[in-house]
């Protein structure tokens, strides 16, 4: 088991943000976390990143409590892609920014190694960002920047990648590009992925497992293929859905019913 959550709870100033969250993620798994706004998805990601301390329960990473890892050691296990970054604070070239992700493998006096450069080049190649690796990050489009963020997370060479709504601000074309990239990472490179998303169709089609959060509690956890169910989606989002079958894959797709 790569990561295991045991009755995890998180409180900030008497407000309970998460309670009794238990799940496991195996090596090579692709877990989508879904749920309405304010359901605790981002809190859970922040707990998994070790930014927030659980108020009860614990997270076990490779058999050891997550909070017992020093920061650098944790960064070698878990990487993170945020929803969006402030581009004006990114006055670095793509190459420099991706190189910065090798921080966890260095100390103030250590030299840049060939293995570092190899990891950076590989990350750029996988994400198809080599072509603009000399451009400034703050001149990139949203889609390009998100690929650079993923490249940077990849250069960390950690087995687990956390993504917080990585496609929210992207147009359909770039959404598909990021989805395909995550798919490739998961299936061809064995990367374990935990992704927070609002796109339930993407979650049910591309991920292996889904964890549905509702008001800080775990509402459902299981195989992604079994997720699409009218009552479940209504309970989760308080919204009716219409279901259609994908003409090619035959999988169920849900459309929010606006009538």
């Amino acid at each position, binding site marked *: 088991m790569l990561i295991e959550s045991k009755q995890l709870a998180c409180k900030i100033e008497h407000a309970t943000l998460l309670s009794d969250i238990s799940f496991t993620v195996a090596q090579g798994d692709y877990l989508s976390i879904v749920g309405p706004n304010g359901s605790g998805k981002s809190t859970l990601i922040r707990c998994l990143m070790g930014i927030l301390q659980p108020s009860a329960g614990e997270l076990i990473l490779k058999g050891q409590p997550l909070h017992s890892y020093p920061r650098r050691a944790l960064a070698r296990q878990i990487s993170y892609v*945020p929803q969006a970054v402030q581009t004006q604070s990114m006055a670095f070239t793509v190459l420099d920014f991706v190189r910065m*992700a090798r921080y966890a493998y260095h100390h*103030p006096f250590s030299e840049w190694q060939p293995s570092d450069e190899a990891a950076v080049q590989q990350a750029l190649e996988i994400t198809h960002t080599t072509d603009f690796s000399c451009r400034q990050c703050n001149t990139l489009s949203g889609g390009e920047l998100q690929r650079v963020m993923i490249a940077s997370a990849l250069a960390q060479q950690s087995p687990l990648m956390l993504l917080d709504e990585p496609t929210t601000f992207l147009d359909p074309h770039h959404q598909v590009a990021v989805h395909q990239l995550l798919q490739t990472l998961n299936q061809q490179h064995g990367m374990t992925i935990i992704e927070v998303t609002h796109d339930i169709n993407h979650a049910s089609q591309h991920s292996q497992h889904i964890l549905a959060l509702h008001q800080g509690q775990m509402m459902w956890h299981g195989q992604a293929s079994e997720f699409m169910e009218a009552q479940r989606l209504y309970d989760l989002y308080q919204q009716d859905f219409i279901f259609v079958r994908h003409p090619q894959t035959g999988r169920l797709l849900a459309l929010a019913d606006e009538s």
Partner: protein
Amino acid sequence: MSRQHWCLLLISLGSLLILLLSPFAGLQGIDQEIRHTILHDIRIPRTLFAFIAGCGLALCGMVFQAMFHNPLATPFTLGVASGASLGAALSVFLGISFSFLGITGASLFAFAGALVAICLVYGISHLRYGFSTETLLLTGVAASFFFSSLILLIQYLSNVADAFQIIRWLMGSLTIVGYQEIWQLLPFVLITAAIILLLGRELNLLSVGDDIALSRGVPVKTVRYILFFTTSMCVGAIVALCGPIGFVGMMVPHICRLLIGHDHRWLIPTTLMFGGGFLILCDTLARLVIAPTELPVGVITTMLGGPFFLWLLIRHRRPQA
């Protein structure tokens, strides 16, 4: 050699040239013997002092701007300078005129004021929200206003002579005689510069964002503690010895960023050299413009740095996408 190598090399050479030439400026037509005394006892120590103070102010400003993701941050943003100024104003108001180990009462009071400000800002921001950048910034600005109002109160209650002395102190000055102040200031700036030089990679990641820095392995809180305390002590020492000289700490890092980019591994040495050279240049002009009377150096730093910065900003303006 890359553009960054050249920039750093030229700025360093320029600063060293200013450092070497400045003591001789304005010495023409003075008797040989007096000239020797002026040069050795006044000019050389003063130039060295300006260099060290300029290095310290510029570096601390750079750190604060990166740490708070705020281009308007200065070394004085966190209330350290106001605390020190309050200490100095109090010492003038109370008529204190002792000195301890060669440090004047005003400087000691100012340094004590800086320490009080550091503890207060740290204590309040730590108490409730656990030392986040936002609370730190807000607490610092609030403390700064509070101390400033106390200084105004002291000025109001003082007699004219004391009030004038306080105003002169608040303008900042590099008037020193002998090498004592240099030995007092040097350890603070040296230690701060060494620590900041070692934290270049951390500063790069912090300038992108706290969450990114954390996820890349930077122990953000620890780094922030270290930076907060070292830079605050350094600013406290500088302000205690030469008053709050404005603008260097805010503008020099920006000018260096425009010249050399945002990578702190280059930015730190560039800012260090530029800050030192810039403050000497301003001080030399302050001495010469209406010689034999001197202008407060803070006036020159702003008058010289402001237009230069605006010129750079316009020159570097990129076409909007």
